[in-house]
């Protein structure tokens, strides 16, 4: 489900996602932050889609290691945080 997170001193970042049998699906990230190049957001969403929940953090960190990206108002750890929040708010994970 969609969750918003205001980065302290930074911008708003939101994530929407769902979980199927432990795999992350339908990831959409949004917000009023800045990312250069902008199209890396699409590659980031693709990188997260289909991975296991426990691989989320390493996948996002790896992504920014291999895709030179300039971020303003948000950092890799904020993406990890907000996607995690969105996963744990997903109905299929409630009760775990």
């Amino acid at each position, binding site marked *: 489900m969609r969750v*918003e997170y205001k980065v*302290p*001193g930074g911008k708003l970042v939101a994530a929407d996602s769902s979980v199927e049998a432990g795999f992350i699906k339908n990831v959409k990230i*949004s917000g*009023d932050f*800045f*990312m250069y190049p*902008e199209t890396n957001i699409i590659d980031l969403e693709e990188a997260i889609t289909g991975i296991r929940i426990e691989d989320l953090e390493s996948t996002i960190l790896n992504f920014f290691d291999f895709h030179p990206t300039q971020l*303003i108002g948000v950092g890799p750890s904020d993406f990890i945080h907000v996607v995690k929040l969105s996963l744990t708010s997903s109905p299929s994970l409630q009760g775990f």
Partner: protein
Amino acid sequence: MNETWRLIDMRIEDAYTQMAIDEAIAYARKRGETSNTIRLYRWKPSAVSVGYFQSIENEVDVDECRLQGVDLIRRITGGGAVFHDYDGEITYSLVAPDSDPKIPTDIIESYRIICGCIICGLKELGVNSEFKPVNDIIVDGKKISGNAQTRRYGVVLQHGTVLVDCDARKIFSLLKVSGVKISDKAIKSAEERLTNVRKYLSRAVSFEEARTALIKGFEEGLDIRLKPGKLTPYEESLVKEYRKRYKSSEWIFQR
């Protein structure tokens, strides 16, 4: 002798054409087919633009926009949602190579320099404003100008809004203000976050007066001379092509 940049002065177009023009100039500049450019413009009909990464349904009351005849567009630049009120706002844009010595490589510093031109122009009108990193210009803690920049094709494109007048009620009837977003700011009401030139000066300020001041602001802030010009035929052809993308629902509702 200071250098000369092109000025495209107060062209009035709809949202799709305006955003297509900014991108066309950036692309033509990359190709070396046009010169460094400052544009001042107004949006007719009034429009809401959202940042490249924003979720339009969560930021904008889409039905209310349709009801009020307000166009909707997604920018190629990041940042937040803006209401471009034909009766209350001037937009500017700047295009130059990212290697231009006048534009710092550091993105925040480049915002500071370009926003400095707007601050200079506002001062000319009697408004004392300041830069608030990352991308805002404020007066007494209230926003008077929002700015957004992209770097692509080896070119810097920054555009931003200068509030000459504003109907805060109308703005907040069109935009959805997230409770999370303002949670770390000690502000009671979203309407208290904005100001504008006419409100600050308590007098009627014409678009002509504001435009003249902004031109002076860019000339002084960048130490350049602005020479009025037009889009080249090549740029106009790109505008036609890009306009279709900006107007498509696939682009606008992609996120």
